[in-house]
């Protein structure tokens, strides 16, 4: 409760939250606002913004840019959240195992993590999607597969730190079984930095998804912001609005998530935040 109150008093965090809620509302209301499919031709092609019935103009095939943005919000948020859940799940398990058991297990896990961090993740994602085929699930899998290493490193560091802490050792001495020690004493104390990293991972996942779609590797059945920019980039000299508006949508969404993430960081880890913010 205290955390919630502190967050509500966090100015930039609140700005982020307001934008984010707006994006969520847009995603939810897309079928109401734009009953037609975003793939349908609704007007003449190349109509600039504020043309009749077309707030943000139309694209090369006469599709409504505004409708594309509304439906794109659903895709971006869905993929961002799903891929992050996958990444956090992989990362927390690997990090927790490495940090709790230490020694050789830790060594092996960290080598693996380091390797995944060395590989250019975006190229791996391209290869995975190109190989497995561009479907929603495969895009989520590909993004999750390249996004977990930071979560794993963080979780490991937290587990290592907490495992040596005296209150954890005291719990061991009290005869509490290992799983109870992990679940009741280590994980809750490691949770807030993981939540913060998770929220920032949603933002990077959305960016990766947009880049994949931009390269033509998105699910061809789903309208997405990256696809809209990629499809219209060759006509940017004639029709700037086709690329500008979806880009602003990505920018605002990612910015909002980052602001919320930072707000969470400041309220969940006040000590660290104060140290950095102190001037």
């Amino acid at each position, binding site marked *: 409760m205290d955390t919630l109150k502190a967050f509500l008093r966090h100015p930039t965090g609140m700005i982020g939250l307001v934008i984010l809620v707006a994006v969520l509302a847009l995603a939810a209301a897309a079928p109401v606002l734009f009953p037609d499919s975003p793939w349908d031709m609704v007007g003449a092609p190349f109509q600039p913004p504020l043309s009749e019935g077309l707030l943000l103009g139309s694209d090369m095939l006469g599709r409504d840019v505004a409708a594309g943005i509304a439906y794109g919000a659903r895709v971006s948020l869905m993929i961002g959240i799903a891929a992050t859940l996958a990444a956090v799940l992989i990362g927390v398990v690997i990090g927790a195992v490495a940090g709790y058991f230490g020694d050789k297990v830790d060594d092996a896990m960290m080598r693996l993590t380091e390797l995944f961090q060395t590989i250019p993740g975006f*190229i791996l994602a391209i290869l995975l999607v190109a190989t497995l085929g561009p479907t929603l699930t495969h895009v989520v899998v590909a993004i999750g597969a390249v996004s977990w290493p930071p979560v794993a490193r963080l979780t490991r560091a937290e587990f290592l730190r907490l495992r040596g802490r005296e209150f954890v050792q005291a719990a061991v001495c009290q005869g509490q079984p290992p799983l109870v020690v992990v679940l009741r004493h280590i994980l809750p104390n490691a949770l807030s930095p993981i939540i913060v990293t998770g929220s920032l991972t949603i933002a990077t996942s959305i960016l990766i998804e947009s880049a994949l779609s931009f390269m*033509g590797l998105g699910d061809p059945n789903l309208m997405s912001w990256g696809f809209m920019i990629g499809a219209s980039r060759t006509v940017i000299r004639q029709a700037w609005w086709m690329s500008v508006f979806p880009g602003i949508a990505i920018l605002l969404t990612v910015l909002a998530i980052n602001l919320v993430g930072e707000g969470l960081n400041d309220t969940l880890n006040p000590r660290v935040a104060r140290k950095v913010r102190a001037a």
Partner: protein
Amino acid sequence: MSMSASAVSGGRGAAIVLPIVGWVAKFVGVVLVIATFNFILVHAAPGDPVQVIASQSGAADAKLLAQLRAEYGLDKPYPVQLAIYLKRVVTLDLGYSYRQQRPVRALIAERLPATLLLTATAFLIALTAGVVLGVLAGVRAGRWSDTLLTIVSLLLYAMPVFWLGLMLVLLFSVKLDWLPAFGYVTIGVEMSPLQRLGDIAAHLVLPATSLAAVYLAIYARLTRSSVIEVMHQDFIKTARSKGLTQGNIIARHILRNAILPVVTVAGMQAGALVGGAVVIETVFAWPGLGRLIYDAVLQRDYPVMLGIFLVMSVIVIVLNLITDAIYRLIDPRVALRAAS
């Protein structure tokens, strides 16, 4: 103001040999793992591996397929196939692009310089400008210039690189017509070598800036918080108690200590930077590996895709080694600990 450093340099020999051995090991290890990864991908792809390698589906030249099958040992057990594949990689045989009718190695060699130029320039811009801006913001934390930097970096950090690239094109090429928007060099114009260099540089500005921007923002924010953290450490109090001016304290005590975490992160971000180059090359029609992989993806040209993945990973490792070396240069503890 160093005392004579020669006496310590005797111990440096061992300290430098050790990391080189470690680096080589890391290098070989990563290359082998990525090669294995590639191998798995070929087998995970839908269809017969031999058709994947030949980048064909459906009707293919039966003779070619049989020849490939023998060459890659595709009728043998997986471990043997893997060994054959690894051996090819180690001997720098990256296969043959049947789509382009050329060896992958030749294709990559042709495109590599442009990618190296782009990534190296972007890395350099991001690191130097990021650190400079971050230090300025950190020592002025709370003032308007600091706030401005925070806002700009937040925006940059939230932008997709390809979109930033397009917006720069829109502004500097389409509206202002200051800089070329596409390509590597102006085609069909006679130029002296110096003119050509200038022309390439002009073409480089937009892609390198777009690629650098995000990382610049990351490094600037990190440097800023690192500077603020170092400023609160005890040895800064010692420096103040010595009677040093603020400028001297920043130059002699804060800077070096504050850069260390930035260098670490720069090393970890190298992979993302190289990945970003793929998108940027696509946007700017920059004739590098990214452009090549984009075409290869569209055509499902596996040998090219996998070859580029391998080479790009090697570039990341090299960038890692460079940041590692920079770290050692700044922090004497690493080398001295290793030597003792």
